[in-house]
């Protein structure tokens, strides 16, 4: 499956409802000036994929993901990612009948995480199973290279490199 559209509202520097649509099935690029919000879009994808280590999205706690930490009248951060799931043999387990899958994650200041799959409330474990069944484990990601981290693999000790292969095996 691949991303078709991302909708961010109240997430980091995306205060107002921002729809990023028309993703290419193959090669998409994001550019813009320093501080304009490029990495924040990648953070929003990790957010929906269920990231738990918030340092990976440059936050100390969930509240920091809300626009101005909730100090500017916006009290929740919502991100929805709509996936094209038309390739049945590459579908997440149990979703073969859904040509489109929308996963939403929301945090409310002072509240907790909330997940939705195709508009229905879902448990974090359901979301985790969905993504793990297509090799997207954002908490042990082989598909994600964050800013400034590209060469960290060269500083790994030999046993660490071996376990990286074990993950893939």
């Amino acid at each position: 499956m691949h991303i078709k559209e991302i909708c961010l509202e109240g997430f980091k520097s995306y205060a107002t409802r921002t729809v990023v649509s028309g993703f290419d099935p193959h090669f998409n690029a994001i550019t813009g000036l320093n501080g304009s919000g490029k990495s924040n879009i990648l953070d929003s994808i990790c957010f929906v994929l269920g990231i738990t280590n918030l340092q990976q999205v440059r936050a100390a706690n969930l509240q920091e993901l809300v626009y101005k930490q909730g100090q500017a009248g916006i009290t929740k951060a919502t991100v929805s990612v709509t996936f094209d799931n038309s390739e049945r043999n590459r579908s997440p387990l149990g979703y073969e009948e859904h040509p489109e899958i929308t996963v939403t994650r929301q945090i409310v200041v002072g509240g907790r995480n909330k997940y939705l799959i195709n508009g229905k409330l879902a448990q974090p474990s359901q979301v985790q199973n969905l993504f793990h069944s297509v090799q997207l484990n954002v908490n042990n990601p082989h598909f994600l290279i964050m800013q400034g981290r590209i060469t960290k693999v060269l500083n790994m000790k030999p046993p660490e490199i071996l376990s990286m292969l074990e993950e893939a095996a």
Partner: protein
Amino acid sequence: KKETLKVTWVKVNQDFGSIFSTLLPGTMAKLEPPEGGSFLDGLEVRVAFGKVLKQSLSELSGGQRSLLALSLILALLLFKPAPLYILDEVDAALDLSHTQNIGRMIKAHFPHSQFIVVSLKEGMFNNANVLFRTKFVDGVSTVQRTVTKQTK
């Protein structure tokens, strides 16, 4: 299980070497066990420029290190594909020609996965099919989409 790991190593090694030599002609890269050990003790990255294996990676330049790391990561991705890849400024240390090579490699050799690549360099994002431009306007981030005219 040990056997599966060995098979993984052989295949990843092959792709690692082939990707690196494509990006930097005349070089060779591989993963091998540390001196006097077996692969179960761990694997080290070794490179050769020309025929001579280097003792360590320390003398490599910033751009060469980026290309080496990218080659290993892409080799792992070839072995265990994911539906989507997220790369944030992996070309920061690369000159124009290497940046273009990475962009072209993504286009040509990884057709079955979706890439979302952040880059400040035209040499990279000119290879994309769709380009999103972020802009900070009145204190908030905004995004605009453009379609890149692609010639094959």
